[in-house]
């Protein structure tokens, strides 16, 4: 057992070294922070469950390069997101922006929660109105 734990500990400590350009991109810490934030927010289209920060697909590398270029040209974060959305669609952003097309993404969770709440209230009301009889109580 302790061996197993040791083994698990060993593997949990292992880190994967990937060929990602993790070198600092900017000397300016503020630019570097913006860069790191943006690349976490952008989905790698080639490997859809990774951000371009985590992906070593060449497309992610190309996009990181373009983002570095735009940052060094003094573009704002929104301009960079617009650039990506215009080319790859809203899907490229992990946090899609509120718009006609993405409205359902934002509203659906609240709508579902409300619907569930209504059902719950309804069921509880009906239960409360039910007489407590011996058989039902014994079942529970």
């Amino acid at each position, binding site marked *: 057992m302790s061996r197993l734990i040791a083994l698990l500990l060993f593997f949990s400590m292992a880190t994967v070294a990937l060929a990602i350009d993790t070198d600092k991109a900017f000397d300016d810490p503020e630019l570097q922070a913006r860069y790191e934030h943006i690349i976490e927010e952008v989905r790698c289209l080639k490997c859809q469950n990774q951000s371009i920060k985590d992906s070593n697909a060449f497309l992610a590398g*190309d996009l990181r390069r*373009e983002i570095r270029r735009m940052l060094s040209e003094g573009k704002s974060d929104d301009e960079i997101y617009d650039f990506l959305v215009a*080319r790859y669609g809203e899907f490229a952003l992990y946090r899609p922006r509120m718009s006609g097309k993405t409205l359902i993404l934002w509203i659906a969770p609240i709508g579902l929660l409300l619907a569930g709440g209504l059902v719950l209230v309804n069921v509880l009301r009906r239960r409360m109105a039910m007489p407590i009889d011996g058989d039902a109580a014994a079942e529970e």
Partner: protein
Amino acid sequence: MRFAIPIVVFLLLVVVFSFGLFNDPRELPSPFLGEQAPTFEVASLTEPDRVVGSADYAGKMALVNVWATWCGGCRQEHGFLMQLARSGAIPIYGINWRDNRPEALRWLEQLGDPYEFSAFDADGRVGIDWGVYGAPETFLISPEGIVLHKHLGPLNAAIWQEDFVPLIEAGGPSS
């Protein structure tokens, strides 16, 4: 009546889930559909000194095909592209994406060259402008420069007949 609501909810879920099941998440709608196609201007693959670009097919119905030698699907569709080029149905323009020149040239020599030209996009800049994320990708461009259709993955005669021919015959977007 008591069961009506759960059954309706269940059926709705079946519809939603089957949509999710049969919908390929890799196939994303191109934001360029129905919009002006991106432009490009880069060196030609076969003639490095010649600049080629979207201006070369302005005013014509054209097919823009993104390919690379490292891309398996591109090899798969190459035979069909050759056939299409021979038929003269539509001029095909290539974007050789993130590739290596000698290998790409060898590919065209061995398998044939269906392209009017291939733009040599070594650093992927043109690919980014076109929102390319997985070769092969094929765009149908109208004479006015509008993206009528985008196909992700290898082309074949059946897909061509079903998705491209009606649009080409209509000469404009018909969705």
